[in-house]
């Protein structure tokens, strides 16, 4: 008996521990009037000057305001600016709105604006926006509410780069590098708490200059697993998912009476990139043959469940500079075989298993992308090209792409609104790390047009220049355009006012509210 005593004690303690565990793992009921949004990945830095990942950029859109903003149709509008002038082609003058307050109650003035852009321009600060401001010569404070930017030469994309959020100088200087961990801006929501890898909580800003948001708070909950994320939405512990529902889960959500799905044509552009320094791929006929061999419609219909539209170029049809009259590559395997024969790559055994040549195709470990790779491999096999698909962990994959260590790869450009992106992607001087010309594309005419497009300030003439660029690129095929993904929002019924923005920004959250029917 004497040995039994302590054992019972231990059992008792174990029981208590287990009970504590169970109690602590039970979830609290969600608070009322708080919107929970599921994210598939982790934001890394909420400092708008440094934010590079899509999650941080999107969350920043409701903590901060920039001098300019984009509306849901990607039109550029003034934001913190009452009005702006362009007295000479190289000078921009902004009159700031009065009475705009940071979350600590201090008013936003011209020195904050100057400080924000001065730090971005400082190369030691390593801001990803540095390139957009390389043509900036000086920033002048005219008075407390007026600020002037002077450029070295006319630079049309300049206004677009002013959507970066303005930060409070005093707080940013005091916090230093930690500013990105507890950011403070002028936006409709103010930062409350960040549990890294788990959630970010924001409260409504009662002093917001456009009025108090209708929600009390917003919580961003990180749920990396696709299945779990969909279950959380069904269960109600997450209210809204934006572009993070896997296509194969759409059916389940559509059948759910408590969930509403909103679709909108998107601008996120998926493509196949070629390495133009590769012996086989430097041949235009081979690239065109590959384009003709791909059956995009099949992939869109069966793998993407119709949630995409075939693409013709980097700019989506909703963009003001979009050019639709370009060379198109529909599924024509016969043309593809003919082009390959003409290029000198004959099929050694016709329909047989031997291939004309072998290519390696790289992708990330994203499941959907891997699956698309397997389908592409099958489609190319039908015209006699062997495609070896390899998936790599993101870091390795992206480093290889940047260093030119690939033949073919696939990626997606997200949130493109400014046609100057073409300079970053196809100008011969934009080879990484300067830009994103990863395929090492070189074309003097394109270089000249791209430079012209930057200097030209008149929108109609700019449109002509970019039309020409789009036509040449569709013919030359440094990229094969795959599709524009359709934007999909899956939300609990009873949420009103959420609008999809081109870059997936959460800007519309300040208008969002729950109607009475909310369970």
């Amino acid at each position, binding site marked *: 008996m004497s040995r039994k005593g302590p054992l019972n004690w231990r059992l008792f303690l174990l029981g208590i521990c287990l009970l504590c565990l169970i109690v602590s793992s039970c979830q609290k009921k969600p608070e009322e009037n708080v919107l929970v949004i599921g994210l598939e990945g982790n934001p890394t830095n909420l400092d708008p000057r440094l934010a590079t990942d899509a999650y941080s950029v999107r969350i920043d859109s409701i903590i901060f305001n920039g001098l300019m903003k984009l509306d849901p149709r990607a039109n550029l509008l003034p934001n913190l600016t009452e009005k702006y002038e362009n007295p000479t082609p190289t000078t921009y003058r902004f009159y700031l709105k009065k009475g705009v307050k940071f979350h600590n109650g201090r008013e936003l003035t011209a020195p904050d604006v100057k400080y924000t852009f001065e730090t971005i321009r400082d190369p030691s600060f390593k801001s990803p926006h540095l390139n957009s401001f390389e043509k900036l010569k000086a920033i002048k404070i005219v008075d407390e509410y007026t600020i002037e930017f002077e450029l070295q030469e006319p630079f049309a994309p300049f206004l677009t780069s002013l959507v970066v959020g303005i930060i409070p100088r005093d707080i940013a200087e005091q916090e230093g590098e930690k500013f990105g961990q507890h950011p403070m801006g002028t936006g409709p929501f103010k930062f409350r708490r960040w549990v890294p890898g788990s959630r970010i909580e924001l409260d409504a800003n009662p002093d917001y200059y456009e009025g108090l948001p209708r929600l009390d708070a917003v919580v961003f909950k990180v749920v990396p697993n696709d299945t779990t994320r969909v279950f959380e939405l069904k269960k109600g512990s997450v209210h809204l998912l934006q572009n993070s529902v*896997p296509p194969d889960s759409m*059916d389940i959500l559509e059948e759910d009476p408590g969930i509403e799905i909103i679709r909108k044509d998107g601008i996120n552009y998926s493509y196949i990139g070629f390495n133009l320094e590769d012996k086989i791929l430097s041949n235009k006929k081979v690239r065109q043959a590959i384009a003709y061999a791909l059956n995009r419609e099949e*992939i869109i219909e*069966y793998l993407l469940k119709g949630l995409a539209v075939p693409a013709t170029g980097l700019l989506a049809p909703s963009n003001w500079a979009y050019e639709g009259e370009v060379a198109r590559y529909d599924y024509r395997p016969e043309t593809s075989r003919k082009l390959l024969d003409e290029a000198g790559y004959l099929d050694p055994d016709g329909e047989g298993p031997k291939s004309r040549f072998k290519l390696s195709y790289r992708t990330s470990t994203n499941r959907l992308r891997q*699956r698309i790779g*397997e*389908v592409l491999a*099958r489609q190319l096999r039908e015209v006699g090209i062997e495609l070896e698909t*390899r998936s790599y*962990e993101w870091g390795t994959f992206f480093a290889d792409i940047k260093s030119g260590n690939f033949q073919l790869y696939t990626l997606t450009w997200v949130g493109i609104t400014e046609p100057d992106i073409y300079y970053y992607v196809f100008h011969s001087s934009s080879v990484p790390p300067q830009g994103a010309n990863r395929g090492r594309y070189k074309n003097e005419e394109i270089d000249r047009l791209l430079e012209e497009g930057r200097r030209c300030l008149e929108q109609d003439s700019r449109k002509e220049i970019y039309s020409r660029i789009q036509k040449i690129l569709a013919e030359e095929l440094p990229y094969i355009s795959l599709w524009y993904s359709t934007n999909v929002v899956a939300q609990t019924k009873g949420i009103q006012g959420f609008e999809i923005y081109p870059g997936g920004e959460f800007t519309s959250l300040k208008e969002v509210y729950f109607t009475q029917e909310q369970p």
Partner: protein
Amino acid sequence: MKNRFAIIGLVVVIIFALTAIFAPILAPYDPNQQELREGFGSPRQGHLLGQDRLGRDILSRIIFGSRVSVLVGISTVSISLLLGLTIGSLAGYYGGAIDELFMRVIDILLAFPGILLAIFMTAILGPSLRNVILALCVLGWVGYARIVRGQFLSVREREYTLSVKALGASDLRVILRHIIPNILSPVIVEATFGMAAVILAEASLSFLGLGTQGMPSWGAMLSEGAEFLEVAPHLSTFPGCAIILIVLGFNFLGDGLRDWLDPKKVVVSRLS
């Protein structure tokens, strides 16, 4: 009772081996043949175990997937066995500094969690069949080396070993002809369990996307299916059953072999 399980195990293992060898004859379809519009097809006539996301036949993929498991199982176990046997023999026979050295190396290696080390290695070397085998061998030999050394320590002092030595036999002859044949039974048992463990480890690595690429593998199929558990549970159920079956098969067989090869048990049964 035990014997019956061992026989079941043996039968499973034999069927598994034959499946791997005759995969191209047994499989009703090419394992990579896609039928996109039939994605998630349920089990039915023509596709007994259904079709996966890309409309590939699951039965054919399981049949071909057995080849990866067999290949990884056999090569990892044989390489590990060879290494373990050599190192264990040297350490056990000579003792002293060699023994000290090898045992400390083994202690260090045992301090790593096996599957984590394998994940680490395949992540660095890149996912491929060869690298999976390599990663599993790094720790695989340790168990064999320890068993062999232990056996050597006891056998090298036995009368028959001492007398062979006294007759002037070389070390190599003593080890190869007289000691190893007498210590093989525990090693064979260990190898049988080892097969099960290695197959499971390969499936885990493939599940994490660190396995072979371009060949159907059970672990990878399981992991792909897990994504669609709610829409199409058959995608992960069948490869999961295949893994359970083969691992159980090897474990039953190992258990049976242990009983059968156990010298003590033989004595007991003779006495009774």
